[in-house]
């Protein structure tokens, strides 16, 4: 199952709710302001690091670049994908939950 999160974890509970309900083996894609959840050294880094043991976490590259975040600022283990990768994830998972 693919989960998308589009809100900053500093301003919304979406990421926390998503990670608390996503089953082991799920894909979680961070888009729009959701990509702030990928930041290393942030207050939410431990939450995401722990989640990485059970789910795969992706971040959308165009949205990272738009916000001035380069790959070396991200938590290790997070995969960076483009819109083509987003489409592939949507195909590879038979269900999608967009946490808005």
């Amino acid at each position, binding site marked *: 199952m693919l989960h998308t999160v589009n809100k900053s974890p500093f301003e919304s509970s979406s990421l926390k709710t998503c990670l608390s309900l996503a089953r082991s083996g799920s894909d979680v894609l961070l888009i*729009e302001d959701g990509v702030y959840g990928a930041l290393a050294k942030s207050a939410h880094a431990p939450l995401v690091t722990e989640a990485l043991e059970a789910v795969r976490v992706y971040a959308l590259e165009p*949205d990272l670049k738009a916000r001035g975040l380069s790959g070396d600022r991200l938590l290790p283990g997070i995969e960076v994908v483009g819109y083509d990768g987003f489409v592939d994830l949507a195909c590879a998972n038979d269900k999608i939950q*967009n946490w808005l």
Partner: protein
Amino acid sequence: MKFSVMVNEGPYTHQASDSAYQFIRAALSAGHEIFRVFFYHDGVNNGTRLTTPPQDDRNIVNRWSELASEHDLDLVVCVAAAQRRGIVDPDEAKRNSKDGDNIAPGFRISGLGQLIEAGIESDRLLVFGD
């Protein structure tokens, strides 16, 4: 693969409309089919032809109209949400005694059944919003 996409936020105000557009372009490039794009909540505001964005900015409404014409996309604006927000086509204008309409080319106004149908008929339904 057959996709449908729901857009729940207006142009410029929120990135949702941009994200939906970029996703659809990428899906079309990869050879997938877009069954329908359904505009709900403030998303209906993508369908007005009265916008005039700054000249150095993207024209979101025109971009939707052009994509629809190039790829024969079905862009559906929810009628109930559109009535609350003042998006009308000539039929709606007549029915509600309005003196004009503002729907952009390539968009049509219809009911929520079109969203349910899109959910049933498509392999995947993605939602972009706030």
